[in-house]
């Protein structure tokens, strides 16, 4: 029995001006066939104007176990947000 083709992650740009967004994955032996499969699987109804395929094995992802240390520090740096600063109401356009 033949082995699974490698897995590719598929990203679709829904229309000009929008970023590519992850929609799912396909199996394919190479990037050309991955693009064809992505087209048939994820854009049968004008869902996009551009496709990216990326070998799934090439994606490095953060670990959910590290979420607390990775993303928490932002919460105690409220001075990064404009609402941190009190400006008198009669001062306009700021």
């Amino acid at each position: 029995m033949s082995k699974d083709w490698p897995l590719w992650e598929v990203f679709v740009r829904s229309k000009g001006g929008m970023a590519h967004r992850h929609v799912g994955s396909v199996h394919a032996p190479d990037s050309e066939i991955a693009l064809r499969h992505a087209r048939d699987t994820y854009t049968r109804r004008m869902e996009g104007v551009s496709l990216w395929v990326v070998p799934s094995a090439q994606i490095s992802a953060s670990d959910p176990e590290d979420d607390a240390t990775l993303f928490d520090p932002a919460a105690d740096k409220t001075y990064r947000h404009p609402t941190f600063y009190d400006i008198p109401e009669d001062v306009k356009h700021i």
Partner: protein
Amino acid sequence: MYTTELQKSNQVRAIEDPEKLAAFEARVAADEFIEPKDWMPEAYRRTLTRQISQHAHSEIVGMLPEGNWISRAPSLRRKAILLAKVQDEAGHGLYLYSAAETLGTSREEMIEALHSGKAKYSTIFNYPTLTWADIGAIGWLVDGAAIMNQVPLQRTSYGPYARAMVRVCKEESFHQRQGYEIMMAMCAGTADQKRMAQDALNRWWWPSLMMFGPPDADSPNTAQSMRWRIKRETNDELRQKFVDITVPQAEALGLKVPDPALEWNEARGHYDFGEVDWEEFYAVVRGEGPVAKERMAARREAWEEGAWVRDAAAAYAEKQAAKKAA
């Protein structure tokens, strides 16, 4: 299309870390989504893998009863529509296999499990499609029941499954409407055509009600699946909803639902309906459906006939990669 969860075995709670389990259950209870790399109890992973892969298998096997009518569709319009619908079913199967793979089971293992008979798929596809009216009845009833099942699954707790369901639901409505339109055309046709439509309804009605799975009382894992938000409504709730919306649709066609016990119950605000033949259901689950053997034989043949294409493409890719490296 859709499948209900058919194989059951769940008793691993004792081996899970109680702290992690409590944190997981709290997240699910708060309607948070669980993503592939998040910690999850093994029983959750197993139940989902089984449910999503059975769902995927159902989409793939679901192409067979309709595929054999593509060459016999009565007009070019109907043929183009049926081709597009069958292609959608393949797409739905692929979204779902991808979602199941994120739980750590390979595509190859899942396909192997289907072909060996170890994995189940929806019982509905083990009934034959005898006339063109069956294609109408399948779109209307089978895809209608599938929509009823799948809409709540868009909020299922596992992120990749929920996202696959959003895509599937967007596409499924076309399937149901094209089926109903076929029924409308036949019911507005000759007396013979209308008889065919009634005959198709007679044969597909009960198997469609079976698509929601066994009664809640005989579905021991429903409570666990509801708690984990894998399932959002019970089999009986969904079945009742389906009957309530479908009966008026049959009336609009001038067709009669083949259930002498069917009656509007003013007090409940629902239709009362007769008992499904659960023995038939379990027999079909066991693989005794009228065309179960043909379905699996056709599926295996398609897979084996395509093996040389898969191997050739893999060999070509390897050769190109080697050339590039040299």
